[in-house]
């Protein structure tokens, strides 16, 4: 299969590879996919508690070149966005940006899922922190 230049670029020079402290209250972690399916993405975001802006994002991916590129691109796109803005990112935009062929669309879906899962995890941590705040009032 021929890859687009953008996929090749992200594969050869992946952006934001690494891990954030998953126990931090400011960090949300999304782990999606399954080894049996040949794709696992871990995407993490670090959110500023005052502004809800995603200040940092990291990923690690087990998967084909398109999966690596989709998650690498996702970290680039979420950085600097607020959590609500990041939730607006659609897999179709990733498909378009990377010129993914139809058989690789699931890679972009997985990247969107990873963003959502990371935000969901972060929100859960905020909600868990809230009741004590309410109780204190």
């Amino acid at each position, binding site marked *: 299969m021929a890859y687009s230049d953008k996929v090749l670029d992200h*594969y050869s020079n992946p952006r934001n590879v*690494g891990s954030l402290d998953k126990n931090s209250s400011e960090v949300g972690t999304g*782990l*999606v996919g399954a080894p049996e399916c*040949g794709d696992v993405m871990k995407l993490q975001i670090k959110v500023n508690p005052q502004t809800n802006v995603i200040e940092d994002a990291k990923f*690690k991916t*087990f998967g084909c070149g398109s999966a690596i590129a989709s998650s690498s691109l996702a970290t680039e796109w979420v950085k600097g966005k607020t959590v609500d803005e990041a939730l607006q990112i659609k897999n179709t935009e990733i498909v378009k940006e990377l010129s993914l062929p139809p058989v690789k669309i*699931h890679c972009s879906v997985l990247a969107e899922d990873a963003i959502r*899962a990371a935000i969901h995890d972060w929100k859960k941590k905020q909600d868990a922190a809230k009741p004590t705040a309410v109780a204190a009032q």
Partner: protein
Amino acid sequence: MSTDVKTIPQAEHIAPDGVKLPVYMDNHATTPMDPRVLEEMLPYFMEKFGNAASRNHSFGWAAEEGVETARERIAKLVGATPKEIIFTSGATESDNLAIKGVAEMYKEKGNHIITAVTEHKAVLDTCKRLEKYGYRVTYLPVQKDGLVDLDELKRAMDNKTILVTIMAANNEIGVLQPVAEIGKLCHERGIIFHTDATQAVGKVPVDVNKQNIDVMSISAHKMYGPKGVGALYVRRKNPRVQISAIIDGGGHERGMRSGTLNVPGIVGLGKACAIASEEMAKEACHLAGLRNRLRDRIMSGLDEVYINGSMEHRLPGNLNISFAYVEGESLLMGINDIAVSSGSACTSATLEPSYVLKALGTGDDLAHSSIRFGIGRFNTEAEVDYVADRVVETVTRLRELSPLYEMAKEGVDLKSVKWAAE
């Protein structure tokens, strides 16, 4: 703690001395033609263009002579007689002709066929079609090493069994089945034994009498011959095997395969067999040496690397390895100056990981991580070293990118993780 991973950007690779890029190491898919084969074929395109079936002029005779020389050479390589060799368009046709031809011819005798789950699709899909026509097919499982269990085979045989079809060498893992023993079991019960020997002929010794083979598929392009030509061996005595034709027409090839003969291709197949007769023994030692060198160099550079299939019963040029925590297609992308194959779903037309590896009990995760190396006549030691080093470097790079590798290193049991279903 947050960690940044500085991944090494994929560098431009410069070929070391004696290595020409890209390196071809996918000799189970196809082999380059041996120049000696091409040389032998060339006159049959222009000067000796005749139809081998033209009996009354010199053009036909010249073509026929080329064909008959080829028939003798093929027969010699496998211990057959020339009259037992039928030319076809390749191993897929040979498999179809063997299985459908026997099934049709012996349908009065029985309707049961035995094969194995790791067979090539040319065999499996042919058997599946016969099931639609009322035949009963047993698909034998294989053991962890890829070998068929002879006791299971024995148990599967019944008084309706007319055919056992089990390959000589597997195209993915290179595992050699106990063909002689399988043939013996068949002969004791009056069952016809077909073997798809596409990957075996010309690579390891094959003798239809010593190994009790009744029908055997052969391909030219897996043994440094041209594409689009193959042969079917059909035993003529002890027992005499008959097969129904699946292509009707002019009655060529003793009525078993009509169609004007592909004379240049057949001449090429014959020459490829003649070369193999001369050089196979020496070549096998050389290839096994290169293969072991590749294996040792990769395994000394990486942990959690698993060989798929028996190392003992294996084609000399085959190596099939799973690299845990790295997906096969991304690995192929990283070694894009090397031509090899992967059992990963992403590289298959069906989007399913290799059914052969699954049959060995290899988990889907490791099947996705597998690479097949097929070392051939024209590979060199320098190429093997280059390939090993590139694989080690790329797997290391991709493991730094892999959440699974990170989790495994943290002591997480990946089997116990509840993965979100896709």
